[in-house]
Structures are given as structure tokens and as C-alpha cells.
């Protein structure tokens, strides 16, 4: 435990020194990676941990982003208030997400969440476009900080705090119990635990993270649009980040998010046109099919080989 904490601290120190060495352009990429990492961690807390696969995670992120954006842009609510309210709204949305999970799981649950996202996409445009900005969304949302370096620190601080909190949480017995749900839900209730309450807890944590991430994301971007948020390509990026990194770990989604973001960005100078998305998708596909457990597993295997067959415990990080 202390050794791993040290590793976290080292990670933080390296990242905090980063603006000294890399260009603002790179920092901007990292900012997006940080937000993607937050979303992927949020996804993973429901889907990786409890095994309830969500195909509609942008539903939660979108509630967070839209609530804070509407409150601050339309009603002049200060960001310090609009973000907590957005998180609250997202958690209420998370309860909606949770209702189907009481009765269905697996594929059907995934499809309901997809339907939730689609519904949200349509409703945002139809209901009160004077508030949501309809199809065009809202532009000119108040930003919290400006400039690459401050925003890097903000996004990294947020991401790091969430990651550390989730990591600490997953090391408690509740983390063990949630992992157990993904393996065998009946046996968890057969161990005298209220799985409904545990799942609700996981959904609330996930919604909290999604709401927090979504709200800060909106205030970082300065603009939101339904087409960018409630989009199957966004779902794709979140899920693939979590899986390619390594599901049901905390570090995994972070690695995955960084990998996916940098991959797409570093393809830009080489392939400026639409070939970029093709190559990007193909790499994701091949990596996923080759190693569904993700980069964490690859690293673990490498570590095992290098360490002469010692069984690594990287899986618990």
C-alpha cells in the first residue's frame, strides 16, 4: 500500500512538472485525455466493476454538462454553484439509469442505456431549445480558467483526485463487493449483501464522476452541442479507452484515454484527412480483439516475463 501510494505521488509529480517541458499544444491534448480519462473511469465504475455495460454513458455526462452550462449561461449562476447542482442533477439521472438495472442485465441493459442516450439527444433539441440552444447548442459558456497551463493543472487535478478517490474506494471492501457483483451477482446476495444497494452505490459514484467531469468539460470547452455529446462515436471513444487500457482497474482507463487521445492527435500531421479516423478505428479494433483485457494486461505480461515469472499484482492497481 505505501509503495503504491508512492507510485501515485510520483505520477502526480511527473505530471505537475510536465508544463515545464512540453509545448502548450501537447498540454491541450493532455487536457482532452484527462477529461476522457474521467469519463472512462466513470464508465468503468459501473460497467467494468459491476458488469452492467452502459452504451449510453453520454446521457450522464450530458446531464452534467448541460445543467451547468444552462445554469451559468442562461441564469448567470456562478460556476461554484452550478457545478455542484449539475453533479446533483447527474446523480438524479443516474437513478433513472439505475431503474432498468433492477430488472435486466447484460445486453438488454446496454440497449436501454443506448435508448436513454438517443432519447436525450432528441429531447435536448425538441424541449425548450431556448434553454438548451437546440441543435446548435450553447457557445460562450463561462470558462473557469484560460490558457493551456492553468487548464492542464485544473483538468489533471480533477482527474487525479477522482482517480485517487476511486482507487482508494476500490481497495476497500466495497470495491471487492462490487467486483464480486460482476462475477456472480446471486452469490453476492447469497453472502447476505444487498446487491441493489451496492449497485445503486456504484451507479451514484459513476454518476457523480460523470457529472463532475461533464460539468468541468462544458466549462473547459466553452461550448456544447447535442451532436458532440449524445453521439455513438463518443460512446465508442469512452468504452474503447476503458477497455483498451484495462477494465476494472483505475489506471487502465487513464492509460487507455491517453493512448486514444494521443493516437488520434499524432495521426493528424501524418494523415490530415479522413483516413485518420479509419486508421484510428482499426488500431482500436485490432488492439481490442487481440487483447480484450487491455494494455494493463499486456504490461502485466511483459512485467511477468521481465520479472522471471513472478506473478504481478498489477491487476489490483
Amino acid at each position: 500500500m505505501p509503495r503504491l501510494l508512492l507510485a501515485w505521488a510520483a505520477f502526480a509529480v511527473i505530471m505537475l512538472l510536465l508544463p515545464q517541458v512540453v509545448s502548450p499544444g501537447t498540454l491541450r491534448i493532455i487536457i482532452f485525455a484527462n477529461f476522457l480519462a474521467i469519463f472512462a473511469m466513470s464508465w468503468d465504475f459501473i460497467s467494468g466493476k459491476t458488469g452492467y455495460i452502459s452504451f449510453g454513458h453520454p446521457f450522464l455526462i450530458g446531464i452534467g454538462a448541460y445543467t451547468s452550462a444552462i445554469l451559468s449561461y442562461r441564469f448567470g449562476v456562478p460556476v461554484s454553484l452550478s457545478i455542484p447542482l449539475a453533479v446533483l442533477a447527474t446523480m438524479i439521472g443516474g437513478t433513472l439509469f439505475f431503474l432498468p438495472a433492477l430488472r435486466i442485465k447484460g445486453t438488454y441493459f446496454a440497449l436501454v442505456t443506448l435508448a436513454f442516450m438517443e432519447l436525450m439527444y432528441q429531447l435536448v433539441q425538441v424541449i425548450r431549445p431556448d434553454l438548451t440552444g437546440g441543435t446548435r447548442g450553447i457557445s460562450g459558456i463561462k470558462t473557469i480558467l484560460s490558457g493551456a497551463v492553468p487548464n492542464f493543472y485544473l483538468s489533471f487535478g480533477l482527474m487525479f483526485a477522482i482517480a485517487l478517490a476511486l482507487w482508494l474506494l476500490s481497495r476497500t471492501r466495497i470495491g471487492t463487493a462490487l467486483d464480486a457483483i460482476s462475477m456472480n451477482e446471486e452469490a453476492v446476495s447469497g453472502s447476505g449483501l444487498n446487491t441493489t444497494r451496492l449497485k445503486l452505490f456504484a451507479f451514484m459514484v459513476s454518476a457523480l464522476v460523470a457529472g463532475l467531469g461533464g460539468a468541468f468539460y462544458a466549462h473547459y470547452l466553452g461550448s456544447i452541442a447535442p451532436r458532440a455529446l449524445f453521439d455513438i462515436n463518443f460512446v465508442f471513444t469512452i468504452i474503447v479507452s476503458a477497455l483498451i487500457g484495462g477494465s476494472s482497474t483505475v489506471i487502465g482507463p487513464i492509460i487507455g484515454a491517453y493512448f486514444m487521445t494521443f493516437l488520434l492527435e499524432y495521426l493528424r500531421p501524418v494523415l490530415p484527412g479522413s483516413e485518420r479516423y479509419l486508421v484510428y478505428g482499426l488500431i482500436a479494433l485490432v488492439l481490442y480483439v487481440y487483447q480484450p483485457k487491455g494494455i494493463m494486461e499486456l504490461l502485466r505480461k511483459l512485467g511477468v516475463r521481465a520479472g522471471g515469472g513472478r506473478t504481478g499484482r498489477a491487476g489490483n492497481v
Partner: protein
Amino acid sequence: MLQVLIQGFLLSGLYALIAVGFTLIFSVGRVLNLAYGAYLMIGGYAYFYMVQTLGMPKLPGFLFAIGMGALAGVLMYRILVKRLKGDQVAVEISTLILAVVIQAGIVLVFNDSSKILHPIVDGVWRIGSTTITNNILVAMVASWFILGGLLLFVKKTHVGRAMQAVSMDAKGARISGINTDRVNMMTWAISGALGAVAGVFFASYTQLNPSMWVAPLIIAVAVVIVGGIGSIVGTLIVAHIIGFMEIITTTFIAAELRGVFTMLLIIGVLVIRPQGLFGRGDL
């Protein structure tokens, strides 16, 4: 009223056609093929390329589209699904990624702009203010024929019965000497071919564009969820529920709420009756 009836039947026929290939994979392979919409796209673009770019006659164009769809199905099965060995989540996610890849591929080859297919059959006729194009009529009739043919195929032929057996109990089928791998591959090929046919009709209704795979996928998902997996007849019934609901919403309530009701129906059915309206039967 007559108008709603006519338009309802026409649209529902198309929806049934779209959903049936998806149902097939879901009930036989027990996996959700999120790249199903891509078959429609591949079929539509293949037909467009042959007929409207190269100027070939319609029939070879149609056959080419079917072939491409079947090929896509087989490749998907061989390269992805088989490798993932029935891990449902892995198949869902990898087919989702694949759909995004195919979309990027289509953008690359055909560019981003929407394309319109000529009607496969020309001509219109009119009942009151209702216009019926022969094209849509043919799509509906074709849909009925294909669904009927599929039903016969599944019930009467050897391969069809093998598919049925696999859909009920894959392990049992394997023990009783059925080559489940081949049956699965056949199913993927047929599903791909059906998707391509649906794609040509769907595109001749609407348009071709690189993100066209999402809408039919959602229709297929809605039909399968509301109906419950399996049953070809169930697919037909639910396609009509959804088709008529859309027409009624558009005509009497508000045209912009078209999709909202479909989504609410999916969520409602899944939460209240997770097994679907017609249960989770076999093929």
C-alpha cells in the same frame, strides 16, 4: 384513416425487412451485432456504385449488393466473432468499433455527402392525398416475401432446422452432430445478405450517407427488444407496432416527436417486460 393504414403498412414492411437479419443473428448466435447497420450501408453503397456510378443494370447491381452483404457477414464472423468465442460483451463492443471503422472507410471512398438512389421500380399512384410509389410497394411486398421465405427456410430445410437447433441450445446441437460453426457462418452470411437487401430499399427510401447505419440499427434494436428475441413472426408484428406508431405520431401528434416515442417504447418495454412482448422464444 385510410392514408394512415396504407402508409403504416408500407413503412412497417420496410422496418420488418430491416430488423429480420438482426433478429436472426440475435437468436442463433445469441450476440448483438452492432455492426448490423453497416450491412445496410454496404449493400446500399454497393448497389449505388454498380448501378448509378458504373451504369450497370439493376439486377446485377442488386445481386452484387447481396453478395457484398453476405461477404461482410462471413468476414465479420470469421475474423471477429469466432475469435471472441461467444463473449457477448466483447462481440458487442468489437462490432461497435467495426461499425465506426466501416463508417470511416465509406467516408474515405465515397466522401461525406449524401447520395440518393433512383427508385428501384418507377411510378406512383395516388389514393386521395396519399401517394404510393411503386418502389415502396415493392419494398413492402419484397419484405413479406423475404420474411415468408425465411420462415419456410428455417422450418423446412435442413440448414434452417440446424439453425433452429443452434438457436435453442448450441451445446445440444453440437452434441447431436450439427456443425455449429458452419451453421453460425451461414447465419452470419444470410444476415449480411438480408441486411444488404434492406439497405438497398432503405437507401432508396431515404439516402446513402456514411452515418446511415445508426438509424436502421436503432430500428432493428427497437423491434428486437420490444418483440423479444427470436420469432420471425414477432419481428413482423413489432415492426408494425413501431411503423404505425411513427405514422400516427407524425400525422396526428407532432412530426418532430417521431423518434421520442420509439425510444420511450423501448425503455418502457425493457423495464416493465424485459422479456419483450412476445417472450424470448427460439427462431
